[in-house]
């Protein structure tokens, strides 16, 4: 993945193919690419970064080997690091899940169209294997996942 973040010539091919842009006219990948060089601080405040559905269409269409998706993703990483209010709250649940279970979703009882309920066992599926969550949480901690640079007043650090 050797993308060239500086090669954009603002053709907007990314935006014309972006499914999010089709529904939300305030979200335009080519504008984000252009602004990322000159208006970085303000971009970090943009809530609609999270509307991107990670489909990769922009990156696959770009004639200049730019990845708007990568630029959007880096902006999101930075806004998470800086505890921006617009980071979806759902991530706190995912982080807790991965620490507790090693997976990013919890085992569900599913309900069919006839209102029958099923769990893995009812379907003859073996239990989900035990996951060494201690090792994983320790590694994620040492890799700095939980070190955030929040303003004092609204620290949402998930560090235990």
């Amino acid at each position, binding site marked *: *993945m*050797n993308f060239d973040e500086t090669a954009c010539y603002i053709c907007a091919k990314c935006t014309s193919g972006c*499914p*999010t842009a089709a*529904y*939300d006219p305030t979200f335009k990948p080519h504008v984000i690419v252009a602004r990322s060089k000159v208006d970085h601080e303000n971009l970090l405040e943009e809530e609609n970064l*999270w*509307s*991107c*559905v*990670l*489909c*990769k*269409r922009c*990156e*696959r269409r770009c004639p200049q080997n730019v990845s708007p998706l990568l630029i959007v*993703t880096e902006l*999101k*990483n930075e806004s*998470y*690091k800086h505890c921006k209010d617009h*980071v*979806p709250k*759902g*991530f706190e649940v*995912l*982080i807790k899940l*991965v620490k507790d279970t*090693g*997976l*990013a*979703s*919890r*085992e*569900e009882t*599913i309900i*069919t*169209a006839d209102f*029958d309920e*099923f769990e*893995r066992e009812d*379907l003859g*599926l073996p239990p*989900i*294997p035990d*996951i*060494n969550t201690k*090792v*994983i949480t320790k*590694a*994620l901690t*040492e*890799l*700095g*996942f939980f070190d955030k640079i929040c303003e004092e007043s609204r620290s949402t650090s998930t560090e235990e």
Partner: protein
Amino acid sequence: MEPAFLNLGCKVPTSQYAFELSTRAVIKELNLPIEVQQEYNCCGFPFISLDKNAWVYLAARNLAFAEKAKRNLLPICNGCFLSYVEAREELLHDSKLRKKINNQLAKEGLKFTGKYKIVHLIDIFYEVRDEIKSKIVKNFDKKKIAVHLGCHGEEERNEEPIDGIPRIDKMMTIMRDLCIETDLYPTIHECCGAGGIISEKDLPFKMSGNKLVELIEMGYEGMATICPFCQSQYETKQAVISQIISKKVQLPVYYLTQLMGMAWGLDEETLGLHLNTSL
């Protein structure tokens, strides 16, 4: 095929049970050298938007377990597939990152070198196409079903498809082998929207809903997927979609593995068909 670990990921073993059931059944019938990976964790993809190190570490740990067992990794989910492909690229091209991640993995006696491959279900099924055909006892008699491979199962921009045939074409060929009528349609590459669910907006459901509406209008009798997130968006969430787009949406959506099993005459419960809410 070379031996592989089937990595079940998060979504399949916690709610998309029909995919696990039908995949296990199909693999068993085809007698493929595939074992379910027992030691693993989340592929990291849910965290790609938060922290690169966290994402790559989680992906690398699973790759390293497969490597230790001298096996390729076969993620059941497209999201996981892309996560491993991209994390592998990052690790191979960034020696500092590789060192940092391998330092963590070393504590468990693991190491990522990238020696083994990440493989996709569609490529494997295509490889054993003749075998799949030979098992058919009851074909679909030209039932019109739309193909949906899913964004993260598609080849990258500069990626040479395996055997020179893109996965979307392979998936259609397999469906046609089952005597399903399937063709290109305008929104064939349109995204299911699952990647945007975390934002808690209506947008992802409008995306999936509009594609379903279009397929219904085109006279399709069903849709086939190969990813638990696509299936959830197009199948499990049909009631939610109907509410959001204020229009009753009803189209049967199947996993490709279910369609294969149906053509082979496997029973409903083995394939988890009783769990599909759209049939």
